[in-house]
């Protein structure tokens, strides 16, 4: 069995960096969506949806972390 500490660090990196990545992407989309909404309030729904799209990145990270954790 691999070193538990290293696995834990790996899981942490997987979640942490993907979290940062989604945050970065969402920041860009979010500010653009707010801009679009200022022009046309009806875009709220679309803006909201577009903003959460990058959330998938961190979910992938979390899945990887969980898989690592299950192997601990």
């Amino acid at each position, binding site marked *: 069995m691999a070193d538990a500490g290293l696995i834990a660090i790996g899981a942490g990196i997987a979640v942490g960096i993907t979290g940062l990545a989604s945050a970065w992407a969402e920041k860009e989309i979010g500010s653009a969506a707010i801009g679009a909404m200022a022009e046309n309030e009806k875009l709220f729904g*679309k803006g909201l*949806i577009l903003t*959460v799209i990058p959330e998938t990145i961190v*979910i*992938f990270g*979390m899945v990887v972390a*969980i898989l690592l954790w299950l192997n601990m």
Partner: protein
Amino acid sequence: MLLPKQMTRVLIVGSRGALKDTIEVLYQLEAAHLIDFSAEEEGFSLGAPLPESSDASQKLLKLRSLEKDMGLDDMDVSGSMDIAQVDKDLTSTIIELEAEITGATESKNKISARIGELEAEKAVLLNFQALPLNLELYRDYDSLKVFTGKVRGDPTAALKAAAPQSEVFISDNGDFIAAFVIKAQADEAQKAIAQFGFIEMPAPAGNGAPQQLVARADEELVTLRSSLVEAVKKLEDLKDKHSIFVKAADEHLSIIVAKAETPLRVGTTDFTFAMDAWVPTSEMPTVEKAINEKLAGKVHVESLEVMSRREAHGHHDAEQHDAPVEEIPSKTENGKTVSKFEFMARMLSTPKYREIDPAVTMMITIPIFFGLMVGDIGYGIPFMILGLIGLKKCVSDEWRTISTLLFFGGIWASIFGLFMFGEAYGIHFAEQAHDMSWSSLLGVHLPHEIAIGGFEIPLGIYSKLHNVKEILYMTLWIGIAHIFIGFCIGFYNKSIRFGFKHAVIEKISWLMILVGGALLLLFLVDAMIRGLTVELTDIRMLIALPLIVIGILMAYKGEGSGAILELPGLMGNIISYTRLAAIGMSKAGLALAFNTIAFEVMWGHDFHVMGSNSGDTIMLIAALAIFLIGHLTIFVLAIISAGLHSLRLHYVEFFMKFYEGGGVEFKPLKVIRKYTTDKNGVSE
């Protein structure tokens, strides 16, 4: 029906004299979606508004400005009036109202302006109050120049140096001065005080001690303020008295104007008119009958074409073909429950005439996903109650949609919470080996399952935090099933639009890849996670590989090389469904943290011992407070994360497989009355 209602394109032609009656009849039928006349056709020109439009518009303009004065412009008023009544009083009441309201508003504005003026004067006077001089002493000198104003610091010494014969008065707090300087030395003096940040403030007009003037201003302010209150009250009274009439008249006139301006969308010649419209095929007989009966001989209705679902130009590029192909409007007819979900689908896009309205599919899966992510009866029941209240009280589409989501999602959350996860507020019912439970907390034995008539119904099969593997695996299958349904709907949409063969190439190919991938998943789980020894000639591999290869080849043929790039996307889509597990887990983790702080740390509960605690009542109260705040946080987060993510799974992963959207909503000529009633009905 899942598809929008079938439409017929109709042409209504008649003599121009009958135009008004035709419009009237169409408004009553509420079945015709007018196509704007494009002024390109030879011999035709745009119709002119009916004569009543200009008078009504004028009155409407007046009313709207009155509404603004009364503060009614975006307010809701309850009640309604009959239009006969509105019509009768319209002209006289508008004139009367205009006089009253304009008068009241004007006097109110005048008083407010005077109050503002007085307050400014008073502010100046308050400065002079600090000096022991009467106001008349500040002016009318032949040889003296007077400086009055604010300073920072005491300039007396500097002033005396610059202008020895000057006289300086300074307020007690040292920030206001009055300096009397001989005119010849005025420039020097000004330079000297400028260094102390002098800001000039000329003495106000008037005689006597500033104190007296301030007192007088105060008196006047008191009277003015009370008359302002009166003026505001008068306006309020007027508002209360006339609000319904104003709203009703506004609505009535708007309807008149809308009807009178309808000819602007119609082509006319000198003696005839021609109207192009969409009518639902099922309502064609009614429309024809009504027009033939009421406008016999003067107007003729002709059904031009019953629109089929098949795309006229065969292939994808239907949109790029010659421009003036009018979009066929989609009229969806959903039941009471489904229509609550319509707004969610519309938020993304309106369905096209030639595709399935996704609201039905959303109604089924959105609450299930929401429930799975929440999966806790402790939140499920409050969600249900909140949703029910929302559905009762809210009017706006947005809030109603959220309430719908909460209500149906709450039902599923309770079901999953009770039977699948067996927990309330992140705490399991029955005793657990490694965690606290309601049993241990309350000191009562709660069962692991209940038996109803020979069936053992489990209360909690999985724990969100201890059966991660199983739940993750389950969510992958939910994803595969959901996407499978998506491709099936996509197949149906494509086959009605472009034909069976096209649909097979475009959608069956992906279905094959998906099924192959699912079999491959089964194989891989055995090989990699369960650690079983499997042969490459396993039956699942033997079926999966050909399915995937053939699927890819078909997709390549249908969509070109882009299809290959979409392959990882499909895998990503499926993995994306693991968020159902991940979000449930994150909520369970938060709940565990709060519960541990509250009960184990503060109240001293030991879950190995039933009903144990070492804390006293005060600690119990503190623990309950933490419990309450913590779970309220999770509850609110659940709305945002579970609600948004279940929507997103539909919009992104699911809809991409079949939904195009971008349709035009069916908007028939019709009258919507809110503040008015029409007792006479037809003979309006």
